[in-house]
């Protein structure tokens, strides 16, 4: 006869948590006493550093930690012969700084790295996560030293032509893979991490496709190198302009939108380049539709099909032309007449064909293609349209443009001829950039990027559940909708209107971002996954931050370029779901939400990548160049977790399996809390002690192994295997 007393008590929380939606404290859900075991189960608490069981034989006495049982997951087991007790479960959560640091490095950066964690949180004089946010919001104040970290960056930089260089004949110019590698190297190593995140976000928001430019220039050039160079240069130039814009403290959404609208890559991508509104030609609707649906308002948010048709006529004439380099920024410049000195074939009959001209391809307005069909027409967009009531004040009560009725946002302009026709386009983007629909949709996309995916698209159809979700005119908004609204307010009240930084500041100051609401709630894209895997193990082990001093690194190319000769082995970003940078075929950009990226096939590719990366270079699985080889990471993407251990752990801890595992868990999953990882911890320790896959299988425990970073040493193999295991798990898919 067991007489057991069960006392279900909320645990006490030892440290302060800066969250509004405080999670439920753990409560004991199950207590059983069957046969030889007494078992206590409880509900988990997010970001728990540790759980412990307290007991007391007497309710009036004090509770003390009971260390006689075994803790695994959220279950504590003790022999049934131990004394009759009252029990409590106690949780020690991560501190608010610890939690925020993890969120910040997962969202404002491409994942935590050992050196960043020390700088912000665990080092000798940590700056703290709030200082990191402030610094990242002002990237122009950070001295960027990323070019020192890998020789490829400057090498590739030298291959980008300045904006006024003529079309070259030689081949030493950046290819799209060069640009991709350059982009990735910065994402891996930049100090201005948030800038790199934002660049990728806006590049993906205003998506264009390298291949489409390539195809377009195929009609002018027989020279693949020339086509490739021009198409690459377009991608580089628009990104370079966004980068510079984002370095400006008062950068607005309009600034970014204008760069996109004027980018030759966009003009070609969505077919404006050949669109005509003259004669019997019907204007191509592609850009007008996606400008509203994807780049500004969001789908069915404040526009109709007739707005698209009218707007498509406005964009006719926006094209590209090869012009004299000194006129690259003049959209009315004539086609250059200067001939290339050396490329004209002997006996060529037509020396003025495009391929023989020396100049640069740039945005150009062709007034003869601009809408004159059937006669020169004025245009009206959003005829008699009003901002829906769900937006509330000030959006429904203010005056838009020249409208004389509050809340009406009709945009009209007179018929324009000749070069004046270019103004149609500028009037449109100036108007769209700060409309409430744009404020709302861009804010939603930023919240999805930085907080979590569950911010639905808005709707103005009262039958649609999303209508009520984003009905700001009432009260009682969800924290998500309230955050969107707060972002819009920051947007609306900034001067000049539409600044990016106040919107970001709003998100980063929100409880939703700083708390559990923003912690490990998102799944990584392939780009985020691969780069975060490298960063998780990447430390400059001698503190020099110079090439070849890192415990993990990539040359950039390995992630994107086909390894080996054609057809070769595709780069991991392609295999994990076709995330070939700067070459998305659909204008919605790569998705942020998890279901798109998660399937058996893509998970197998992700696990193969981290396994290949963790195998020592030259060993099976990390060598070879054929299409069927298993060199998934490529020879220049590598890691040495033992080198990281040598740099970070004292000698006495290096053969202590628990110490090694704890260091890796805290580095790789800083936001989860060791308390919630205790099963992973046990498994990883067992992994280190398991010699079944050593070069010579053995039963030698980890503690008895000689510390070595030699590829075939048991110590190296086991540490590599354990780290690959941690990077293969569900938790590493998350950020």
């Amino acid at each position, binding site marked *: 006869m067991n007489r057991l007393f069960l006392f279900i008590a909320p645990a006490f929380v030892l440290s302060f948590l800066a969250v509004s939606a405080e999670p439920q404290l753990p409560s004991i859900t199950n207590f059983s006493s069957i046969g030889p075991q007494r078992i206590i189960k409880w509900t*988990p608490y*997010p*970001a728990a550093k540790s759980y412990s069981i307290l007991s007391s034989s007497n309710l009036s006495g004090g509770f003390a930690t009971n260390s006689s049982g075994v803790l695994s*997951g959220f279950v504590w087991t003790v022999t049934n012969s131990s004394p009759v007790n009252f029990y409590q479960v106690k949780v020690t959560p991560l501190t608010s700084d610890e939690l925020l640091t993890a969120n910040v490095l997962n969202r404002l950066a491409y994942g935590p790295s050992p050196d960043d964690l020390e700088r912000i949180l665990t080092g000798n004089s940590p700056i703290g996560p709030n200082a990191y946010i402030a610094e990242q919001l002002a990237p122009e104040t950070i001295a960027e030293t990323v070019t020192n970290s890998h020789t490829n960056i400057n090498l590739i930089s030298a291959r980008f032509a300045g904006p006024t260089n003529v079309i070259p004949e030689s081949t030493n110019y950046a290819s799209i893979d060069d640009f991709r590698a350059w982009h990735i190297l910065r994402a891996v190593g930049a100090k201005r991490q948030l800038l790199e995140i934002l660049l990728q976000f806006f590049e993906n928001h205003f998506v264009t496709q390298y291949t489409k430019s390539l195809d377009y220039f195929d009609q002018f050039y027989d020279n693949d190198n020339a086509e490739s160079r021009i198409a690459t240069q377009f991608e580089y130039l628009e990104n370079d302009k966004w980068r510079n814009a984002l370095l400006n403290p008062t950068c607005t959404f309009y600034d970014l939108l204008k760069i996109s609208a004027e980018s030759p890559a966009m003009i070609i991508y*969505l*077919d404006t380049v*050949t*669109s*005509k509104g003259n004669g019997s030609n*019907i*204007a*191509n*609707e*592609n850009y007008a*539709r996606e400008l509203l649906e994807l780049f500004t308002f969001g*789908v*069915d948010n404040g526009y109709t*099909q007739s707005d698209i048709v009218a707007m498509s006529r406005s964009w006719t004439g926006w094209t590209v032309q090869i012009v004299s380099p000194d006129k690259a920024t003049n959209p009315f410049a004539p086609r250059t007449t200067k001939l290339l000195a050396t490329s004209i074939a002997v006996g060529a009959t037509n020396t003025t064909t495009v391929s023989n001209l020396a100049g640069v391809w740039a945005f150009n307005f062709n007034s003869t293609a601009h809408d004159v069909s059937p006669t020169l027409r004025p245009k009206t967009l959003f005829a008699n349209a009003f901002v829906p009531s769900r937006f509330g004040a000030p959006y429904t009560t203010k005056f838009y443009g020249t409208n004389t009725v509050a809340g009406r946002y009709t945009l009209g302009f007179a018929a324009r001829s000749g070069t004046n026709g270019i103004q149609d386009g500028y009037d449109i983007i100036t108007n769209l950039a700060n409309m409430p629909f744009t404020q709302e949709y861009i804010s939603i996309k930023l919240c999805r990027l930085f907080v*979590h995916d569950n911010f639905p*698209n808005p709707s103005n*159809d009262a*039958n*649609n559940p*999303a209508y009520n979700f984003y009905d700001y005119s009432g009260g009682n908004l969800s924290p998500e909708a309230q955050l969107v609204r707060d972002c819009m307010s920051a947007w609306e009240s900034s001067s000049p209107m539409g600044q990016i930084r106040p919107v970001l500041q709003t998100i980063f100051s929100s409880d939703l971002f700083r708390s559990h609401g923003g*912690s490990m709630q*998102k799944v990584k894209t392939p780009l985020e996954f691969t780069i975060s895997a490298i960063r998780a193990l990447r430390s400059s082990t001698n503190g020099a931050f110079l090439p070849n001093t890192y415990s993990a690194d990539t040359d950039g190319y390995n992630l994107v370029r086909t390894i080996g000769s054609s057809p070769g082995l595709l780069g991991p970003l392609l*295999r*994990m779901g*076709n995330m070939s940078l700067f070459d998305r*075929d*659909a204008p*919605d950009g790569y998705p942020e939400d998890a*279901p798109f*990226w*998660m*399937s*058996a*096939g*893509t998970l197998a*590719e992700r696990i*193969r990548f981290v*396994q290949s990366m*963790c195998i020592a270079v030259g060993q*099976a*699985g990390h060598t070879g160049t054929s299409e069927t080889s*298993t060199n998934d990471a490529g020879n220049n993407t590598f890691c040495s977790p033992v080198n990281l251990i040598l740099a970070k752990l004292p000698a006495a801890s290096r053969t202590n399996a628990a110490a090694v595992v704890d260091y890796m868990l805290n580095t790789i999953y800083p936001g989860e809390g060791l308390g919630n990882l205790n099963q*992973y911890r046990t*498994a990883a320790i067992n992994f280190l002690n398991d010699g*079944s*896959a050593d070069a010579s*299988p053995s039963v030698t425990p980890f503690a008895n192994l000689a510390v070595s970073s030699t590829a075939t040493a048991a110590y190296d*193999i086991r540490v590599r*295997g354990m780290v690959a*295991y941690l990077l*293969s*798990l*569900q*938790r590493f*898919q*998350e950020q």
Partner: protein
Amino acid sequence: MQHFNIITRRGFLDRSLKIGLGVALSTLTDIPFVMKRALAEGKIGLNGKKLLFIFLRFGNDGLNSLIPIEDPVYPLNRVKIQIPRSGAVNPYAATGVMDDPNLSAPGFPTYAFNAGNGFAALHPSLKYLAPVYNAGDLALIHRVGYPRQSRSHFDSQIYWENGNPNNNISKDGIFYRTLLESGLANTNPLTGVSIQSALPLLLRGSDAAMTNLSDPTRFRLLGLPNNAAGLSKATNSIVSANGFSSVDKLNRDLLNSQYKNLNIALNQFGDGSMFSETNNTFQDTVLGSGYYLFPTATAKNPNSVVDSGAYSFFKNLKAAALILNKTDAIIAGTELGGFDTHNDQIVHDDILGTVDPLSGGHANLQKRIGWAIYALQRYFLQHADKATWDNTVVVTLSEFGRTSAENGTFGTDHAEAGPMFVAGGGVKGYGKGRRTTGIFGCHTSDTYNGVSVPWIPGTTGKTGSMFGVSTSYLKRAVDYRSVLGEIIRDHLGATQSQLDRIIPAYSIAGQKLQSGGVTTNTTAEKTDGTTIAGELDIV
């Protein structure tokens, strides 16, 4: 030769009843969905019937696929990109079989060939459809759409895939729900499989994980070290970690189910050699050697039945066919992109002022569709194992058709209704029963279920059916849900009440999905008053 798995199904019934009762007793609320499924009587997955889907992404220009060649306004609005008429006398008057454009000779005809219903013709690049059609195994359905059509790629793809037009909130797919109704989704190792870069919404849902193989030929892990001992050590660790408990986060159910799915699929496909290129030796016994059913490389495409850009699609299609044929999977499929032909859907030379409407991107895509359907017929006839041609239906989906009038850039923009292709030994096409045609929705006397939905030829300019929606777009006469609904019920074996759950609008009278007629015009039901055919009796 059918491969039932009754034991698995019973095991499921046992288990789900226990789960269901437990939940029901403890909460005294509505019977959980899992139990409703188990109590249903459908035959999905138990009758050996299979479905292969191909999603034609970004809007196939249906008016240049299944061409209303005798509509006088077709050439008026397709000036530069029109597919030329045959030079013969009254080339489209003959009715009955489809013209067979010299099937055994390589190459394609230079004109739209007669589809045999006195009104329609096919793009010449679809020539390999002719033998499938003439065997009665193909239904070509024109003017397919849904009420209040979205002309956004992304919204419209969502609606085709979730089976709920104008509902962006519904996050699970129409085929996912079909498989969930089978009761096998959580017990059979494979039920729904896609082979493409990502799992499509068609197969997504939260109560069971469907399988997507992004590259089936590489579907295995490495292990660390990369040898047998390392592989089992690493894989065992990863598998056992799936059972670890964790805090609730937004994506953890998804991750958990897809990790389990990964392990199951790894066990199913072993080293993946069934998908390898060296095992791709299927050749057509009718056209002869050299006609590889799945042209995945230049060496497998000596007669240029498709363009060289088609190889990766055929690699995926082959895996989908093999999975249906060699496993218990019920639904498998892939996608074909590139249909967003806003410009240059044909070849043109602006300097010479010439056009070649038979070449270019859209023509290449038609070749892929035509050969894919022909090759699937041949594959399932020649190599039937778990899937026979009689037990398999192939269906294409595409989010919308394109503008009836071409734009100024040799292309077409987003519009509304378009065609669906449905093939299979059990499809009621030309000559089956007393059918005189396998063309649906592309004739001036179209009547189904007593509902008249004629294709009205235009007179001048933008008139007639091609401009039936606000004088711009082809108006729908068939709802895609009627086509899929009929396939899910009459082919795959759902009961009507199951179908009402799979496609919720089926039970709403005003939607007219089954019997056809004038749909209601209400915002709440998201209908628009258009007259539609209802089900077409194609399977």
